[in-house]
């Protein structure tokens, strides 16, 4: 392993490996402190950044942060590295790469993506300010499709999340109606089920499929169960649109989620075989988030943001429709406050986009973190400017099933209005056809009317 040194303020700093250097260069965050990886002083942090700026990008190919022999994510990263695409930046240091990214255009960013590894992208993000992360991510366009098209310029899609603590169909349907009437659901209508039992998951899938078909909604459903549950249900003919899975950046962390790359390969093939998409064939939905590898004691001494970026290498293998970083979900031991959550959100979005993924976010916090709804508004605005593909939305921003706070349907309307963003094109056409779109492209308030969608509600209320 190489050592890296730097001198700042009359002190010499030494970092024993690339992984140590990356961790020390990370912005202050409680998770890295908990793992014992954080810089011990503000000066050491900046000293690490000076040293990191001089590291050639090729060093990340030569010195994996987790050994090739012990980790299949490392093998995936190195075995699928596209040398041709890398050529454009192969001679650069991390510092020069930062400047190249800031100056590059959309086409150059798309061309280089397959040549970049998660560690290169995580490294360069540590040299970037929040505004840099926004400026570069904004230029990247990743377009995916199933029944709606996600990621087009000037568009913002939303996940409608009608969770219920006991999966009560009437409760789910009531929350679904609420979201649809507020113009939400073009990225996916996705439920976190209370149980992973195949029967319960299938009931929810059929409920969602029924509503989608009844109203011919150009969107896709997902019940976020374990990949093995989805495979089982697909084999038995259940209406599975997207296969969901939580993934992480190391083999051991994925094992703690009960998944392997082989299992994901199988699920991917099975879902593609169903051919349920109409305008595209991206069939996977992945969720990630900083801290999961540390929480599973599977981080191998790598800082939480770098491990998170490695999860995107896993996602990239399966051409997903959606990748969602659930940014503030775990709690303050990983991201302490609104400031740390915002920084992580921008890093994740940047890294995922630059690696070629359709990145969206669950902009969220738990009530034991030092954050509130103003932090949600700040994050939402910055991520909207940064060109996030989609955001998660819950009724009133309060998820009664997972007990955390997220963005609301209202928040998404705000973001579309202030930034002039529109829904996915197919969904926008549908909204217009069903009378929910006003002349200026805004969502019409039809509460208190006999709108056709409220037939769902009338049937429930009866």
């Amino acid at each position: 392993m190489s050592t890296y040194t730097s001198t700042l303020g009359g002190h010499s700093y030494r970092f024993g490996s690339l992984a140590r250097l990356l961790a020390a260069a990370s912005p202050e965050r409680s998770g890295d402190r908990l793992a014992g990886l954080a810089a011990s002083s503000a000066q050491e942090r900046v000293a690490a950044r000076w040293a990191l700026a001089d590291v050639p990008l090729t060093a990340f190919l030569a010195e994996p942060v987790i050994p090739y022999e012990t980790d299949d994510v490392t093998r995936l990263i190195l075995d699928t590295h596209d040398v041709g695409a890398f050529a454009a930046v192969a001679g650069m240091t991390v510092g020069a790469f930062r400047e190249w990214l800031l100056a590059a255009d959309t086409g150059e960013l798309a061309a280089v993506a397959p040549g970049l590894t998660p560690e290169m992208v995580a490294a360069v993000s540590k040299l970037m300010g929040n505004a840099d992360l926004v400026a570069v991510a904004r230029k990247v366009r990743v377009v995916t499709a199933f029944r709606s098209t996600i990621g087009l310029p000037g568009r913002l899609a939303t996940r409608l999340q009608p969770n219920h603590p006991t999966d009560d169909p009437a409760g789910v349907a009531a929350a679904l109606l609420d979201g649809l009437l507020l113009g939400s659901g073009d990225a996916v209508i996705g439920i976190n089920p209370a149980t992973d039992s195949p029967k319960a998951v299938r009931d929810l899938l059929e409920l969602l499929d029924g509503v989608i078909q009844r109203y011919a909604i150009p969107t896709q459903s997902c019940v976020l169960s374990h990949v093995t549950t989805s495979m089982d249900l697909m084999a038995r003919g259940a209406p599975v649109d997207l296969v969901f899975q939580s993934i992480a950046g190391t083999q051991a962390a994925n094992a703690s989620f009960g998944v392997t790359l082989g299992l994901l390969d199988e699920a991917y093939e099975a879902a593609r075989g169903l051919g349920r998409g109409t305008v595209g064939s991206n069939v996977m939905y992945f969720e990630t988030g900083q801290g999961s590898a540390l929480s599973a004691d599977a981080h191998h001494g790598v800082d939480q943001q770098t491990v998170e970026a490695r999860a995107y290498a896993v996602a990239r293998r399966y051409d997903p429709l959606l990748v969602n970083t659930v940014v503030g979900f775990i709690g303050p031991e990983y991201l302490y406050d609104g400031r740390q959550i915002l920084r992580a959100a921008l890093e994740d979005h940047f890294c995922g986009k630059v690696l070629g993924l359709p990145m969206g976010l669950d902009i969220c916090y738990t009530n034991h973190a030092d954050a509130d709804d103003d932090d949600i508004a700040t994050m939402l605005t910055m991520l909207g400017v940064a060109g996030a593909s989609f955001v998660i939305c819950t009724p009133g921003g309060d998820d009664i099933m997972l007990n955390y706070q997220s963005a609301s349907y209202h928040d998404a309307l705000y973001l579309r209005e202030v930034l002039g963003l529109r829904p996915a094109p197919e969904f926008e056409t549908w909204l217009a056809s069903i009378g929910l779109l006003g002349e200026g492209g805004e969502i019409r308030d039809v509460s208190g009317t006999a709108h056709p969608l409220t037939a769902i509600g009338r049937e429930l209320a009866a």
Partner: protein
Amino acid sequence: MTLSQVVPVELELWPSLRRHTQARIGLGRAGTGLPTHHRLELQAAHAAAKDAVHSPFEPDVVAAALRGEPTVRVRSAAPDRLTYLQRPDLGRRLDPADRAHLPVGEWDVVFVVADGLSSRAVHEHGAAMVRATTALLPTAWQVAPVVLAEQARVALGDDVASAMGAAMVVVFVGERPGMSAADSLGAYLTYRPKPGVTTDADRNCLSNIRPPLGLSYEVAAGKLAGLMGRARELEITGVGLKDESDHMEVSGRLLQVAAGPHQGEGAS
């Protein structure tokens, strides 16, 4: 469908739909924002959750409600709330000075009442659960003095049980507060825990003890006492020990799902 077909007739739809869910549906709008009273309601619920996290644990409240049951007070290695929230490892270890005060004995069980992430849950439901559960145990069982633990996570119980020589530990802990429930209590049962070796997979848990909206004391204590009897018989807790009742399975999974996709550990 044309716009002219949209006629205002259904103002009463949302109240009838709210029977099916506590989700904040049908809030209405002011432009793209929330109506003022809904915004303030959300802030009030958030404030209750925040206060539940940060309000200090008052062992006296629990001790008084235990009406003369012997108690011992301990603290974790986390010196304050700020540290506690960022360093779950410290919240799982006893302050070394307090370890020495714990009475050693041939205890069949020790109950630990731990503040976790909601002191309010512990103040309101902790003593009642200890009393309800104890009442259902065979009289021959040696029940240790109740340990009242401050800045404590679930695994602190491992340290307590091992220091006291208790065969099993039940930790009643304040759960991570949501906006619709800031006073929810969890119960974690572990047989022969070994600090640093025992994992969450070695525990059985009941969550959402919060009458009248959540699990009642009677039902929760019944399930818990049943599990304790079986744990003693089989000398095991965790994934190897299943409860027959449906609710146990659902709440266990609920907790798991609430913790995933990232396997966050709430109060544990």
